[in-house]
């Protein structure tokens, strides 16, 4: 289905009469708006630290809680977009800013968001002393840190790889910087940015649920939401409530998937450089079609278009008028009215190169000083409280977690590669499973942890063994997507050739399929492994009623000291995790990635 027939369909109908779709679409949209407004009005509830917040386990309270959770998500994604649109263009266009922003994002990506919570919550509570806004902000900030980095990186990369011919066209036709940004750069970056935003949001649900129930420094703060509902259900050992929460979350994710994720994917197809003939899987969304068919929404679209026109072009028009005025002033023989300005202006233009050069130096020196002092502060802070032996122990715990993750990756790969390849090679199955996997990736898997815990307790199982798979339950889907995509990308001719030469069984895997999916597999495995580190913070300490199961690993170290409010140890645990993630990324994943790109890519 191409885009044009859709528009034609709309255009041929009579113009002013509202159609049946109007009612449906308007009801949905009005409902969404009303719900969000209701949720927002409850965020600023008065609150004092230590005051218990009662979370009702009555299922009728769940829709309200779900709404509060969704609202937090939207605020966080809005902030992430804001960050993306400021940081990425800065880094892409200014070499000095790039030096700061890109390494910062690289490292920030490795910091587990849930660890951040322990550190920022105190600050936020102090900023908003008598209101629940403090913990709210802290929770939102956590989701922000889980989302913003890869969005900004994606946008930055798109800006840097803008095709030369677009740049030249923009220059020849003299688009202003502002027009260039909105007409060319943003649309070009849109598909990748949108995909990353959606992936970020999907990953965000996990952190959101985990950060609503904040246990820090022996304080339990419960923000009204599904996460706190689950926490309360665990404390009360109420299995029914857990099932209600899972059902509510399924509904939320389903709505998110159908009303936001899918329509946006379809919309973003418009920005792709090439028509999507090659990948037979075209995105479809009933909601997007509904919005297009709705007549009364066309007024909003027209208003939006008019606004876009004004916002993109008008600033340039003003600038041009200013320029023309100044040109006029220059050309006229009359001396400039503010003649006193000319001397300093002239002086400024002569020292400008020296000035900008020294700015660069000052900036670089400042950067180095910042890094050194931050390192010094961290080392001193940790060293003051913690012995060297303990640091060694924490590194040992890190290696245990790393080992668990490696084992999990191997096991899930063994399980998913055959299934993923089977799905990927079969277009009909792919049509069914791809959306399903995307849906599952968004579901916050920590909601089902309590079910596993009751299982472990009931059958008296080994905690270290049986809690380990929980780390990968939520993030394995990235591996699955990529295996499916990799198998789907194998040229059909290559498969036919293999069939023709009787390549079968183990040889078929070793010579054809495994090398072909390798680049995709590496991307998926890298994301999955990164997600596992984050999940270990939640999955290593499991509770049910008054019982607590603790698995050995870095995750449980961080969680325990966060709860008891031991900041040096929390900081140490987080630093070590950050170091592990960074080092493994550089030494293992990037190397494999290079290998995949040079040896196993199909181009």
């Amino acid at each position, binding site marked *: 289905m191409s885009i044009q027939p859709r528009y034609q369909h709309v255009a041929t109908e009579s113009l002013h009469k509202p159609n049946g779709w109007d009612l449906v679409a308007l009801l949905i949209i009005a409902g969404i708006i009303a719900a969000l407004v209701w949720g927002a009005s409850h965020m600023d509830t008065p609150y004092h630290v230590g005051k218990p917040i009662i979370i009702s386990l009555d299922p009728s309270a769940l829709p309200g809680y779900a709404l509060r959770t969704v609202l937090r998500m939207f605020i966080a994604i809005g902030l992430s977009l804001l960050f993306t649109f400021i940081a990425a263009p800065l880094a892409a266009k200014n070499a000095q800013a790039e030096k700061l922003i890109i390494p910062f994002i690289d490292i920030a990506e490795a910091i587990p968001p849930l660890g951040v919570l322990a550190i920022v919550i105190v600050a936020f509570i102090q900023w908003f002393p008598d209101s629940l806004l403090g913990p709210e902000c802290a929770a939102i900030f956590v989701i922000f840190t889980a989302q913003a980095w890869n969005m900004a990186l994606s946008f930055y990369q798109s800006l840097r790889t803008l095709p030369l011919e677009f740049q030249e066209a923009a220059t020849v036709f003299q*688009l202003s910087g502002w027009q260039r940004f909105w007409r060319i750069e943003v649309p070009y970056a849109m598909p990748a940015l949108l995909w990353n935003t959606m992936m970020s949001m999907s990953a965000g649900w996990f952190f959101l649920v985990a950060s609503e129930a904040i246990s820090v420094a022996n304080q339990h703060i419960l923000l009204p939401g599904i996460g706190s509902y689950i926490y309360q259900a665990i404390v009360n050992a109420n299995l029914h409530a857990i099932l209600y929460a899972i059902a509510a979350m399924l509904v939320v994710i389903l709505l998110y998937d159908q009303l936001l994720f899918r329509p946006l994917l379809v919309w973003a197809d418009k*920005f792709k450089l090439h028509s999507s003939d090659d990948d037979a899987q075209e995105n479809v969304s009933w909601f997007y079609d509904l919005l297009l068919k709705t007549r009364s929404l066309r007024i909003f679209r027209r208003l939006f278009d008019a606004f876009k026109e004004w916002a993109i072009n008008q600033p340039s028009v003003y600038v041009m008028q200013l320029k023309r005025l100044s040109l006029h002033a220059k050309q006229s023989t009359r001396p400039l009215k503010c003649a006193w300005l000319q001397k300093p202006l002239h002086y400024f233009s002569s020292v400008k190169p020296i000035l900008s050069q020294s700015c660069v130096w000052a900036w670089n020196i400042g950067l180095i000083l910042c890094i050194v002092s931050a390192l010094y502060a961290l080392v001193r802070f940790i060293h003051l409280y913690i012995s060297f032996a303990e640091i060694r122990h924490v590194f040992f715990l890190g290696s245990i977690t790393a080992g668990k993750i490696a084992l999990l990756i191997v096991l899930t790969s063994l399980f998913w590669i055959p299934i993923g390849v089977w799905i990927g090679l079969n277009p009909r199955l792919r049509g069914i499973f791809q959306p399903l996997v995307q849906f599952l990736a968004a579901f916050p898997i920590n909601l089902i942890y309590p079910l596993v815990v009751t299982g472990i307790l009931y059958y008296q199982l080994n905690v270290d063994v049986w809690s380990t798979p929980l780390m990968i339950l939520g993030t394995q889907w990235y591996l699955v997507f990529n295996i499916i995509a990799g198998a789907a990308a194998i040229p059909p001719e290559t498969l036919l050739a293999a069939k023709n030469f009787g390549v079968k069984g183990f040889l078929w895997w070793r010579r054809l399929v495994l090398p072909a999916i390798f680049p995709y597999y590496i991307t998926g495995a890298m994301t999955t492994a990164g997600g596992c580190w984050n999940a270990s913070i939640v999955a290593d300490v499991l509770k049910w009623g008054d019982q607590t199961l603790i698995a050995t690993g870095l995750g449980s170290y961080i969680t325990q000291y966060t709860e008891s409010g031991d900041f040096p140890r929390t900081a140490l645990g987080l630093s070590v995790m950050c170091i592990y993630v960074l080092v493994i990324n550089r030494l293992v994943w990037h190397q494999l990635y290079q290998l995949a790109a040079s040896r196993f890519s199909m181009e």
Partner: protein
Amino acid sequence: MASHTPLISLKHLKKSFTNPEGQALTVLDLDHFELFENEIVSILGKSGSGKSTLLRLVAGLAKPTSGTIHYQSEEVTGPIPGIAMVFQNFALLPWLTVLENVELGLEAQGMPKQQRRQRSLKTIDIIGLDGFESAYPKELSGGMRQRVGFARALVVEPELLIMDEPFSALDILTAENLRNDLLDLWCARRTRTKGILCVTHDIEEALLLSDRILLFASDPGRIQAEIKVDLPYPRDANSNAFNRLMDKIYSIMTTSERERVRHTKETHLADIEHPEYAYRLPDVSVSELTGLLEAMTDHESDGRIDLPELADSLHLDINNLFPLTEALDILRFAQITRGHLILMSAGKAFIDADILHRKQLFAEHLLKYIPLARHIREVLDSNPQHRVEEEFFLNELEAFLSEEESERLLKVIIDWGRYAELFAYDYDAGILSLENPQ
């Protein structure tokens, strides 16, 4: 029909790039050129002759290293409203409709929406895109897309239209159709355009289109000859006058080739600054060479092959044909003289030989006549393990050539050397050696 007011004039124009070693590599060196009103000028040359660089300098997309460009009386230091450009790969924005793409340049000028729309629709009408206003570029065929490219350029009413191989991404029929429509517009004066500067590598296209043709030579890019085309439009590609001009162009372009090869050999032998092995081998594969040699027997008459005829029957444009003939020439399999190709005895022997003997013959000629092949072989022979990293040779070449050009050169010689079994190359390790794969 050219008048005497120059639209564009260039003086002492030079453009160079600096390689990693800090040496300046000159890609374009023009003493003087003027484009007059009511004139279409084509720049014809092989890839790498700096013709696209010239176009970008005129468009204000790049700055010259030295020299000046004037548009009427104004110096070109950046893009100028009176100059618009048509791109080789269209450069249309896929997220904008045809109409929105055409409006882009007017938007940049800050024109109000109503006026903009009116003018764009008119241009769309003229260029034959009526009915496609609301289509997205990806729905259109290549020819229609380039029409959008033309409309987008013409709507800003440029006095000078510059075109970077505008028809080369299109198939033959579509290109002809679009070229004829453009000429009709030009001859009927339906646009405000006063001059067209067009880069092409298609000799016939240049002859069909232009009042003047500048033949460009490489290393550094420069004007080698200027051909005036006084034939009336529409031109007949089968007329005698047309064919005479065609032969003349082939003759000039091939003569230069021969001289350049000889020239490089003589002057650079004693030249330590620019060793022989840095000679820029043409970018052709062994199978293309073999294919051409085999095809040559069919076209030979009294020992000579007419190049325009060969190019026509094999559908080769100058970007494909000249590198091939140059390679045959430097390998001493054939000889180029004034628009003709003469098969030499080694070439004949090569055609008659079987696969193994072909390889032997090729290896012999490679070592004898291609300094880079000889150089690599000598280095490998003198190395105790007979294994040398490709970086070594790349670094050597980069002292004289750009990074990109060095990589290209090494890729060509690896292809030739592998075929001749002079040396082996391990892609994963990036190592050249004398080993055979186990």
